[in-house]
């Protein structure tokens, strides 16, 4: 039995198979419509989430399965003081697979150690959010046709943004990847990512502060939100939140086939006027999130569809 805690749990070959399965699902949805008949997904969300939870639920429903679960710690036994280990032992009796989000880092791993069903980490604090990374990889592979030989601009909060860190880890396994790290000084990528990941693996990258200085080089622009909850004082947040706003004028500097991605939700870092640009791929990205979660559920449940 396998779990998914980090995007690095899969080898490049396993990821290729998973993404190919997701593309097959996108192209032949009917073939998979009953693949999980009679199977149940438990969504154990100890903190609020709309898109991730609904994306998991849509994925299981698309496969013919059903879903059960809770969407906040208040509505679970955690409010009574039950441990994650005990909760998962009980959930294992009710469902075939579990997607867990928890504000504490490592909680899904604790669950996986006691579980008798596959556990998917659906986000644990600022630590990992592997299905977002799988979504990003599928979006890039589907819309670009490949995952190597790309210049990727990562823009915004590169210090606290777990999606950015996971994506860097996942992409450096492909050939000829280059990064442009676009952030204000205060929100630069942490030194351990620069030194232990980029430098150590000889990945070319440059750091810039102005989005305009990077646009022309990029194949992918990955925008992120400056997260209010990461700041200790309001003043710093207010100063940072509008640092980057992608608008039509900046898009004129970009390549014709550049893609704009965003893990969503956005606040105002992408102007709504960009939404109609054919290069804006962030809503398609949300759709790919469902396909990749369907592929993941099938893979972890070891369901073969001929």
């Amino acid at each position: 039995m396998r779990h998914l805690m980090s995007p690095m749990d899969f080898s490049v070959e396993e990821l290729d198979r998973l993404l190919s399965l997701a593309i097959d699902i996108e192209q032949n949805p009917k073939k998979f419509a009953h693949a999980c008949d009679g199977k149940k997904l438990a969504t154990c969300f100890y903190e609020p989430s709309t898109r991730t939870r609904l994306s998991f639920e849509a994925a299981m429903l698309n496969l013919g399965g059903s879903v059960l679960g809770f969407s906040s710690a208040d509505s679970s036994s955690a409010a009574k003081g039950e441990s994650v280990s005990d909760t998962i032992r009980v959930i294992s009796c009710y469902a075939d697979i579990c997607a867990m989000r928890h504000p504490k880092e490592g909680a899904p791993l604790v669950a996986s150690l006691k579980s008798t069903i596959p556990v998917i980490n659906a986000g644990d604090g600022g630590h990992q959010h592997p299905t977002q990374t799988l979504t990003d990889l599928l979006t890039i592979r589907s819309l670009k046709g490949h995952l190597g030989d790309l210049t990727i601009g990562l823009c915004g909060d590169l210090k606290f943004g777990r999606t950015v860190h996971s994506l860097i880890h996942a992409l450096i396994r492909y050939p000829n990847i280059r990064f442009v790290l676009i952030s204000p000084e205060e929100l630069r990528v942490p030194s351990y990512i620069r030194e232990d990941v980029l430098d150590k693996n000889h990945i070319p990258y440059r750091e810039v502060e102005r989005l305009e200085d990077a646009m022309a080089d990029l194949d992918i622009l990955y925008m992120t939100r400056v997260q209010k909850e990461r700041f200790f004082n309001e003043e710093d947040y207010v100063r940072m939140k509008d640092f980057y706003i992608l608008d039509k004028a900046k898009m004129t500097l970009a390549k014709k086939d550049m893609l704009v991605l965003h893990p969503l939700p956005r606040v105002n870092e992408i102007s709504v006027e960009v939404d109609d640009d054919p290069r804006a791929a962030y809503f398609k990205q949300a759709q790919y999130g469902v396909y990749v979660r369907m592929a993941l559920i099938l893979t972890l449940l070891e369901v073969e569809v001929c």
Partner: protein
Amino acid sequence: MLNVGAISEGYVLDHIQAGTSLQLYHDLKLDEGDYCVAIIRNARSNKMGKKDILKVECDPGTLDLDVLGFIDHNITVNIIKGEKIVEKKILKLPAEIKNVIKCKNPRCITSVEQELDQIFVLTDPEHEVYRCKYCEEKYKGHKRVR
């Protein structure tokens, strides 16, 4: 020259960094057992200038050498039987240590579920980096469980 009598069975831990033997005494939980222990501090050493030595009279197999390897893998471990050194153990960094150090990350699951074992995994042997098994926080300083 200080003379400390030989032990018939147990350990002589040599080449301990000077001044750290008392901490090591606690780390090895020697204060929790009924052991005969000699702590020698600031002994002369050709190799180190000054060193500490611990002599512990006990059954060989009593000490957790993984803990010792984590704390200082340069310590020489002599196993004594019949007042003679019968084995010299070479310490290495353990792949995993349990309940020796505590994760300081306030966002880690171990900060709220206190019955969980505190497990750290050696992720970079070259730089001797240990990370929390749960949240992957790097271990940076000493904070003993007890």
